[in-house]
């Protein structure tokens, strides 16, 4: 039986077995490849999406559990006219990504944090931002979150 859910504001019907992780349903059934596979055990956060606004590691949630809920992926963050979410723009301004593979998940985690706290403190950033980045972009992630919440200048030093 297809699973009825909402993804990025659109009603969708997913023809996957109920135990299929949400991650693979998004990537393979809906073609939303911005959400990444990193570890499969909810340890790295590359697969982070929002389910009813809550940050969720989609590799470890069966697709059956999101029936009737609302899922937002990195592809659904920008405005319908294509304007980037302020967190995405802050990521560009601070030149955060290197390989970029973990950044969809990092951005989803940051958006959820900002939604929950408004202007997160350093301790709240430490506590909430637990996704792995192997390129070591953490200092710039911190900067971008501060900039997106009006707590620091937008661009990083040296930017032309």
């Amino acid at each position, binding site marked *: 039986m297809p699973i009825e859910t909402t993804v990025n504001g659109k009603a969708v019907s997913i023809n996957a077995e109920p135990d299929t992780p949400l991650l693979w349903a998004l990537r393979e059934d809906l073609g939303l490849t911005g959400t990444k596979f990193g570890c499969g055990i909810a340890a790295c956060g590359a697969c982070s999406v929002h389910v009813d606004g809550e940050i969720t590691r989609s590799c470890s949630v069966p697709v059956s559990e999101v029936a009737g809920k609302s899922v937002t992926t990195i592809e659904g963050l920008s405005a319908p006219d294509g304007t980037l979410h302020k967190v995405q723009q802050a990521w560009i301004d601070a030149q955060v990504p290197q390989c970029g593979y973990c950044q969809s998940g990092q951005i989803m985690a940051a958006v959820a944090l900002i939604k929950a706290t408004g202007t997160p403190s350093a301790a709240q950033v430490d506590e909430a931002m637990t996704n792995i980045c192997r390129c070591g972009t953490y*200092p710039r992630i911190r900067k971008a979150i501060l900039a997106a919440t009006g707590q620091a200048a937008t661009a990083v030093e040296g930017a032309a």
Partner: protein
Amino acid sequence: MGVKRRAFLVGSAALMGGGLFAVYWGDNSARKRAVELTAKGKDGSFLGWMKIGEDDIVTVYSPHIDFGQGSQTALAQMLADELDADWSKVKVEHAPADPAFANSALGRGFISDMVGYPGVAAAMPASFISMMARSMNLQTTGGSSAVRFTGQHGMRVVGAAARAALVAEAADRLKVPATELTTLDSRVIHAKSNKSLRYGELAQAAAGRSLNSNAKLKDRKEFRYIGQGVQRLDIPAKVDGSAIYGIDFTLPDMRVATIMMAPVRDGKLTSVDPAPAMAVNGVEKVIKLDDAVVVIAKGYWQATKGLQALAPKFTDGGHGNLSTASIFAAQDKLNATGAKLTAPAGGKVLTGDYKAPFLHQAMMEPFALTAHHKDGRLDIWGGLQDPLAARMMAAESAGLDAGDVMFHPMIMGGGFGRRFPPYSQIIDQIAKIAMQVPYPVKLIWSREEELKHGAYRPQVAAGLQAGLGSNKRMTGWTSDYAQFDDAGAEATVPYTIPNFEARHHEYISNQVNAYWRSVNASQHGFFNESFVDELAHEAGEDPYQFRRNHLKAGSRQLLVLDTVAQRSGWGKPLPEGHALGIAMVESFGTIVAEVVEASVNEDGTPKIHKAWAVVDCGTTVNPLNAAAQIEGGIIMGLSAAIGEQINIDKGVVVESNFSDYPILKLADAPDVDVHFIESGAKMGGIGEPGLPPAAPALANALFALTGKRIRQLPILNQVKA
């Protein structure tokens, strides 16, 4: 290994002797093919390195892949600067994996370095050079080489040659002397007559003119883009999910496969009953390879369930007794054969036995390649550190002519040395799988398979000895170290020591030893810079002053060290329970000194508060991205130092996922103060040199705090013991 290295140097010097200065123009047929593969319509393709469209868009073909290091933007900056292009109209694409695009500028960089400056091969690890020699299908990314070799010897030269040709073409059309023409923002300008021509309208004719490989390059002070922190061209697609990595690539009717390899390396598959997998919904096929079993299904989840249902039997290849401890024991035995150092008159000899474990690159994107064999042709899509070599290897595995195989390079979710084709087992696997099925198939490795079947940073044991004179100066130094390859210059130190000798003892296990960001500089940098710290404390001197006393007045090294001491406030009061550690390592032609401020948590584990790095790589092309590379290098170095290790027990790798291979997270990663010294010296690398000083700087800070010397990594094993 020393012999092999010399053999390569001699061979390459002979090979290059005749055509050293013409090499990057290639022969006529290669040039023709490169142009055919890039130019369409009224495009002007300049030797396949770059094309200018009628719409003025400049497309730079990068022979270096992107796995996060940002060098494609830097390469485009270098070409655009010499071309006087309008930066807003510059794009970068991967060069096709075709021999016509083999990166001769990279080869030239290596060779001219070696021929022109004996001992400057010092800037490259011997192991890396020998691999280059083996795989001369040169389209490699690694060795922090893109900007300093390909950029300097390729991009700038092509940009200048193309500019000269555009000017010559404009001179003919305007019927004015070329000397009256200037160039700016993709236009050739004749100020006298107030006329100008767009590059786009000149390009096709200009590209057909004879190109001058000795066109004058700009002087430093004329640079417009080199030295500017322009935003990276690849970043916008990496914040909205639109960037397509190898693992994201999809074709119609594509199936997905996953794999289980023999748990002990060199083991073989003896038997497997495919029935339990075939019973899983969505599974279509089970394929037996020599040392692995593969399940193909409609999707990754179904393939994984099918694989988990199987009970394959493998041999242990005769390595069932191998362990981390047995490797260290064998290495210690080899090191013990090194001659003992005698104490200087009135002084003493210090010794220290250091150890570093196997490490995994743990790039975030697991191995994934897609392939389709159809009508005798094999196409492969994905990310590897040498597309051309990958193509040649796939052809061999598939039993096809190279002309019938194409590799389509894509961006990568990290690499750090893991994705060099010679030890990327997935190339052979996907080629063999694709030849057995009529549909396109994507092979994805699970994280567990990746960690357990990696190509690791070599496990190394070193026995260090140094003489310390009564004048508090080092009088001699020997390093006996055991690993599979000769670490060459990476086992040396940047200090003046009268008798320095690093002695390699070849130790080969069944493990694949590979390149891990900064190659051997991370293990040896940790050993040497920790041991220097031991000597400083033994001499009763401040570790910064002790290092300084072994550097030449006026040297680049001394300036780097002094600057990091100054910026970190070395010697000034710190918060209670905090201490600084310092270290300096020179690698890939770049000098980096770092200071780490640390304290110790209640459970004995380290807490890092801040890090400082001072870098002299000669000239930075993009300081914004160069700083990112140094920040990332330090954090990766700290992560490895604190908790990363690959252990072997009964021949099997113990660690399996990020749950037991801990990567440093944001809360534990320090902010980094990065400062560049623009010395103008010969350009060094930037992707790797930031990493090696991090581990010893942290370990030295911990010694200052606790009096306990860390001689074996990772640190958590020591503080928890």
